């Protein structure tokens, strides 16, 4: 594949197709991923192309879906499964956190568990408190899971192919607000797990932001540019393992850090990042590193409330101003 323009949604379907094409062990199952092509249409055409033996619809039973993927992976298969709205990770949390994440460790390496779990993350669409969460934050304290959070079609494609090839369990979080985003996709570099990307260079402050917030951080950076503030924007792309090094080099230059995240502060990836850098790079900070995130509440439904709940470019700009004025 040379570089193509695809939507984020198409990039996902393409990544799965490309891996299924070259590896018979790859299969896909989940609720309505087959005949219907997925509730987010991110698996459209795959059942037609690869047949119902490799693209299967399941009953509504997420524990069975995850468990079945684990078991199949033990026999060498490479299951890609969909949990639909990421919030449904709650009903199969044990399978993800206690089984999938720990299986290899508890058996001292007798098994590998190459399962890719796709989940649709994030707020902003008016889906309410039980269909809008960013669930990477539920799993940060569960060693054994690799967690990916693509924000562009290109990253969605590369990270998903990398996830499927990875012999370890991967949670792959798709942001619902990005499915329609268009961008270039290529297979030139699939070695992307654990590598942040500097998506805008700058010298005054480092904004670390993922998924929908990456795009808002970029908007904020544009607004700031008009004020002669030069913001560097980094998309971690991978939550676990986190590329601290790229962030560290950035703040070596900017000496200021703000994490922009789509969740409340407690136990968040942003808090983890700040604590880590406070612990090993305290001297780099000119001002206190800040967390700009969702409110410390469940996510409200009403359009007005949800918009207020989510960090806006303006809120990011505000936080930058406060930081630089410190």
């Amino acid at each position, binding site marked *: 594949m040379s570089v193509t323009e695809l939507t984020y949604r198409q990039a996902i379907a393409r990544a799965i197709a490309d891996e299924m094409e070259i590896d018979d062990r790859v299969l896909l199952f989940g*609720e*309505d991923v087959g*005949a*219907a092509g997925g*509730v987010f249409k991110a698996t459209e055409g795959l059942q037609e192309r690869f047949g119902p033996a490799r693209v299967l*619809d*399941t*009953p*509504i*039973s*997420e*524990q069975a879906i995850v468990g079945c993927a684990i078991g199949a992976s033990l026999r060498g298969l490479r299951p890609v499964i969909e949990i639909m709205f990421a*919030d*449904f990770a*709650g*009903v199969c949390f044990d399978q993800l956190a206690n089984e999938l994440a720990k299986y290899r460790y508890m058996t001292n390496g007798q098994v590998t568990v190459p399962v890719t779990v796709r989940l649709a993350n994030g707020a902003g*669409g*008016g*889906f*309410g*408190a*039980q*269909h809008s969460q960013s669930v990477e934050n539920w799993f940060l304290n569960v060693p054994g899971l690799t967690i990916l959070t693509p924000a562009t079609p290109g990253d969605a494609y590369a990270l998903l192919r990398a996830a499927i090839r990875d012999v370890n369990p991967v949670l792959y979080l798709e942001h619902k607000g990005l499915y329609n985003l268009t961008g270039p996709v290529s297979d030139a570099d699939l070695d992307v797990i654990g590598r942040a990307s500097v998506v805008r260079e700058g010298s005054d402050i480092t904004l670390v932001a993922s998924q929908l917030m990456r795009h808002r951080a970029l908007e904020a950076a544009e607004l700031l540019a008009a004020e002669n503030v030069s913001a560097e924007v980094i998309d971690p792309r991978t939550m676990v393992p986190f590329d601290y090094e790229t962030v560290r080099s950035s703040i070596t230059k900017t000496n200021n850090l703000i994490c922009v995240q789509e969740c409340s502060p407690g136990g968040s990836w942003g808090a983890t990042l700040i604590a880590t850098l406070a612990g090993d790079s305290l001297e780099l900070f000119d001002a206190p590193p800040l967390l700009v995130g969702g*409110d*410390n*509440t*469940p996510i*409200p*439904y*009403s*359009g*007005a*409330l*949800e918009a*207020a*709940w989510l960090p806006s470019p303006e809120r990011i700009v505000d936080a930058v101003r406060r930081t630089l004025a410190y």
Partner: protein
Amino acid sequence: MAAERTAATRRVVEKTKSDERGLELLAKMLEIRGVEDEVQRMFTQGLVRGTTHLCQGQEAVAVGVCATLKQGDSMTCTYRGHGAVLAMGAQADAVFGEIMGKAKGLCGGKGGSMHLTDVAVGAYGAFAIVGAHLPITVGLAFASRYLGDDGVSVCFFGDGTTNIGAFHEALNLASLWKTPAIFVCENNLYGEYSPLRTTTPIERLADRAASYGMPGVVVDGNDVFAVIDTAEEAVARARAGEGPTLIEALTYRQVGHSRSDPAKYRPPGELEEWLARDPIVLLERKLAEDVTDPARIAELKEQVRQAVLEALERAKSWPDPELDARFANVLA
């Protein structure tokens, strides 16, 4: 106010299938149909956010079951719960308001289409995680046992829900503790876009009751009187302390699963077949047989239509919530 409303709904319990009663049931079913049709329109107009799951074609189940309840009883339902919440007596304007995220919506705009709740009329919540409310219903019912009142708790859920773990755990505990719970499975043949037979290795879902030592009964969910009869038996059993019942109501979702679904997966003819058995049509026909004056039915239809449209206009005129409202009610 709320109490009066449920009282109104409750009056229909009288066993006599009188004119009056039939017309009341019809009015409620027409109200639900009217609300759902308007919500569908609002969605198209961009007035509803996220998603919405409508119940056109399934009205007889909610209306029939809720007609057997009395004050102090409780009800839980799903994201496809507008009908059930209205059947309990919630006001249509507050339902519309919530769906539009207004401050005066049932949940102040915090819940939305999938979470309509009106505790004042016994509607304890609509749940968006498949199966999650079944265990909660067990607790609502258990409380009646614990408190020694004769309340019962009804739980509506879909056919697809019978495959999830929470269904199993809830029915098991409900039966073990002989809680006054009534599990109403609305078998509308589909879970999202998947026909039941592609996700479930058995056909008769009521058969699953045997695993829990409780009665499992099947009923024509489009026949509101049949639903009432079946529900009355389950309610009586529950009130008598004899434990829960699983009711499988056979019905049909005349619309797509959710706003974005054109329902192309339906076999040809299926929709038409079920439209011919539309619960409202069936009830009207029955009432006509019972020599209800056709003019009264026409008049009722017009009344309900007007009331729904007025409720909608009222709700549209309401303001959005204040932004600070989003911080309220995380904790008590």
